[in-house]
């Protein structure tokens, strides 16, 4: 789980081109949208594609994204659940 969270942070920084952000700047439970990293709706689309491409997980209901992408913690939990299912 810890490795997965680190991997997610690295992918988020790379995919979303967060030039001035390092993995240490992203806390596991920091909000990704709004006050946290300040991601927006285009980033949400990028994250949905990343889940599909890198982890083989398709979001059946886009509304789920609000909870799944709340933080790196929630993303890692969701991916782990889906892989184990």
């Amino acid at each position, binding site marked *: 789980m810890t490795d997965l969270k680190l991997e997610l942070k690295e992918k988020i920084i790379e995919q979303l081109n967060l030039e001035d952000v390092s993995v240490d700047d992203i806390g596991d439970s920091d909000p990704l949208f709004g006050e946290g990293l300040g991601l927006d709706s*285009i980033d949400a*689309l*990028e994250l949905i594609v990343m889940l599909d491409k890198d982890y083989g997980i398709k979001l059946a209901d886009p509304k789920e994204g609000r909870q799944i992408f709340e933080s790196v913690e929630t993303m890692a939990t969701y991916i782990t659940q889906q892989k184990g299912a």
Partner: protein
Amino acid sequence: MKAVYINSVGSVSAQKTFNNEDFLEEIVTYNDTTIRVIEPDYKAYITPAAARRMAKGIKMSTVSAKTAMEEAGVENIDAIIVGTGLGCIGDSEKFVSAIIDNKEQFLTPTRFIQSSHNTVSGQIALGVGCKGYNFTYVHSAISFESSLLDALMQIRNKEATNILVGGVDELVDHHVDTHRLIDHIKHKPVDSSQLLQSNSKGCVMAEGAHFFVLSGQKQSSTYGELVAITTYNTLSKSVLSEKVSQFLGQNGLTPEELDLAIFGNNGDIDFDSYYELLGKGIFKNTPQAYYKHLSGEFDTASGFGFWLAAKILKSQTVPTAVKLNQLEVSRPKTILLYNQYRGENHSLVLLRRC
């Protein structure tokens, strides 16, 4: 007829041009077949949050446009008109590559959004909150001049007062590879100070962004007056001198009366003959200058020429590095820019001191 003034300039190029206080005091020379711009500190102009999705062309343009707007002392403008030969082709290439690499799956929106040609004018408009006329011309080597012409007509027709006009193109790998294959880029590196003596085919390809605030109102920052523009998609050498003389005549000048001719020579032995025809012909007694040894060649390189002409008019000096012949001009009043690329898309732009 209503006068159109060049009230400010902004430039990101292969020279140190992004600071308007300087005027080619230090010439950067290259020995290569391609040249990239000297990048300003983008963070001083663009927030990291905004910059992270910007292609290089947008970043260069944003800096150039902001510089021009600040110098003109305007917070907003009536219209934004941009010329570009290839738009944000870097993101276009990445988007198409992703389609191929991912077997037409997993396409993300960011590259697609930025891959259209009009992204630059749109991003500038979003940045300054301009809801006015927003247009992009994609006309190869006359893209920038097409934008100038649009702005000139709008100001003369009193449809707008202040217009941000610019030209931008970025240098990217695939584009360079394809143009190298078809011999449009030189095969061997060329010392930029010896560009016109390279005696070889093709050009030294480059990139850049040049923006200007054109206005119907003269002010203290004004560089000069944009008098006239004409463009030709095709123009044979047999009628070139006649067309140039006609253009000058329509604006009350003879070739002998012109103070300075600035040519777009790019060192291609197959096509620099157009400039030599004028330089040794109707302009043989006219001071001449050139600039592509400083800027490199790209579809909107003539924006650098326009920047150079504006700076010469304001400073009343012709930098030694751009002089093409030995004739001197002490107080330049009228400047003609002539450019073409590979014998096509010719442009004539006349500027005057005011």
